[in-house]
């Protein structure tokens, strides 16, 4: 178990280093950092001084190590466009994005799993066929289009839900939450559904195909042959085995939900990291882009690690195999 965790940890660190290298290359070689920081009126001498100050004249490997050292302390430099520390900017926006992502993921799971189970158990019912058709259409609709359609229906025509912003937020220390006010919750509905819909169809299809697979296995047949009640076979034996791979994939999807939030945040003008990142891409604000890349990579790696460790607790087979290595 310990060896398993250590091995996974080493792998995670390697991935982080590779991503850090990419972020560093972007930071250092896409455009000239000095040009981005100063105005046209700055003299050549001042530029050279700044260059020396920033350590841009040091050997590249030294700069890379320094970059990693700073990144580990959440020091990503100063945004070109906002002239503020990147860490501060991201810190302000992080709660909005995380709240949106977790609510979207919860929505995807809570709706997606029952739909998947239903379509697997009642393969031929018209409702199953309806769900599957809807899911195919859902996969084909780009996220931003879903957002626009939802805004068109619920904000423009019915006028029952807000189409932009977070509503009223409450500050809990440095964390600002929209989950505690009515307007905050109302503002969350459309963005969360937009962001979660694609994942929901994915989870539904995954649960369905996994469950169909499990229902075909010998141990399910043997459970039926022992006269175990249908309910216990379907929701005990079959569902438990279905959820093992579903946990992994859903966990991994959480990372892409956070990344996909870029689009949803743009549609709903949601004041999160995604919107910040998009503005950075539009204005080639490299420090923010690099920091966002590192942050997303870190979240991905951390989620991966947690999922792997969770997996070990859910599946007894791995507990033993992991201990053996």
């Amino acid at each position: 178990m310990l060896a398993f965790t250590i091995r996974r940890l080493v792998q995670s660190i390697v991935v982080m280093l590779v991503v850090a290298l990419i972020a560093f290359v972007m930071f250092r070689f896409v455009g000239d950092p000095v040009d981005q920081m100063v105005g046209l009126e700055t003299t050549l001498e001042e530029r050279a001084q700044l260059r020396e100050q920033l350590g841009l004249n040091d050997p590249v490997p030294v700069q890379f190590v320094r970059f990693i050292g700073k990144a580990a302390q959440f020091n990503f430099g100063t945004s070109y466009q906002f002239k503020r520390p990147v860490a501060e900017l991201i810190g302000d926006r992080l709660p909005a994005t995380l709240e949106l992502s977790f609510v979207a993921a919860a929505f995807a799971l809570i709706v997606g799993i029952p739909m998947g189970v239903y379509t697997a158990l009642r393969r031929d019912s018209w409702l199953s066929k309806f769900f599957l058709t809807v899911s195919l259409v859902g996969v084909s609709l780009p996220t931003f289009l879903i957002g626009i359609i939802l805004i068109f229906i619920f904000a423009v025509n019915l006028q029952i839900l807000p189409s932009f912003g977070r509503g009223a937020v409450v500050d809990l220390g440095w964390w600002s939450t929209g989950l505690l006010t009515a307007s905050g919750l109302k503002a969350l509905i459309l963005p969360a559904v937009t962001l979660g819909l694609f994942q929901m169809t994915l989870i539904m299809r995954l649960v369905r195909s996994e469950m169909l697979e499990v229902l075909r296995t010998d141990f399910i047949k043997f459970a039926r042959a022992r006269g175990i009640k249908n309910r216990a076979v379907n929701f005990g034996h079959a569902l438990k085995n279905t959820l093992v791979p579903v946990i992994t994939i859903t966990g991994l999807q959480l990372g892409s939900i956070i990344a996909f939030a870029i689009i949803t945040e743009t549609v709903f003008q949601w004041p999160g990291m995604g919107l910040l990142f998009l503005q950075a891409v539009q204005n080639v604000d490299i420090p923010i882009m690099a920091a966002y890349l590192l942050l997303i990579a870190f979240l991905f790696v951390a989620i991966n690690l947690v999922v792997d460790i969770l997996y070990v607790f859910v599946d007894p087979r791995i507990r033993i195999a992991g201990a053996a290595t």
Partner: protein
Amino acid sequence: MSHVTGEGAGAGTAGRPQDEAPSSLLARALDSDIWYSFKRSKVTIVAAAVTALYFASALFAPWIAPHNPSDLASLSLLDSLNPPAWIEGGTTTFVLGTDDQGRDVLSAILYGSRISLAVGFVSVLLAAFLGITLGLVSGYVGGRTDSIIMRIADVQLTFPAILIALLIDGSVRGVLGGINREESAFYVLVASIGLSFWVQYARTVRSSTLVEKNKEYVQAARLIGLHPAIIMARHVLPNVMGPVLVVATINLALAIITEATLSFLGVGIPPTQPSLGTLIRIGNDFLFSGEWWITIFPGIALAILVLAVNLLGDWLRDALNPKLR
């Protein structure tokens, strides 16, 4: 492992006379299992027809579009914000209405699909070329080359393609420094999408290559001293094309979505030569003032195109994979 030759998957075709082999390629194609499964699926036929229609109208847009949306001389602000023909105030001159500059929405959609399809198609070609080459090399050469290529693929796969595309897009524009923004947009977009989608091809091709590599005919080719590049191109490549075709079709839908998303986010095709995504972005501003047609019609056009291509991809995957039937 399913290897698909021109004659289809071969399973379940017992009783077909072997001696009278159909002469032409067309006859052989019509005789195949794939054609049989195509004929049996009405949904697929419709999807194929719709896709063909899109390609045709994209190709012939200048001849079939009622107006030329990029011809500024023909635009008149008097025609701006006309609703669709069947709504009061609409005229049959502009069947689907006009935007704020007096551009005909139907014509804009026809020209826009042209650009969306072009970006999708070219970036799929780029991704396929990159992925196939790297996959062949990776699988055939093996060893360190293989592990380096596959590690890069692993790291890249951790991130959603849209994020990669955004980063590449931002970096490239940072390097170009804003010169020729409008002319370079197409190529930047193609490069961003192409570079973010190569991994699946590489993985598919690599795994097929590993299987083919050890077959007698490749061993024989190697024994007679053929150059590895020739062996790969002539002997290995044709055998991996089936799975690649499936990946390419599904990726075409993804690439179109990605293009639309990037354009919607404002980092893709500029409004002077709008793609479907750009049109939706432009129209989005008018959603609240009641001019819904400017964004909804391009949205529907995009959704139908992606759905049709997705359905084709799904069918192709099942048809080339007899195990799933």
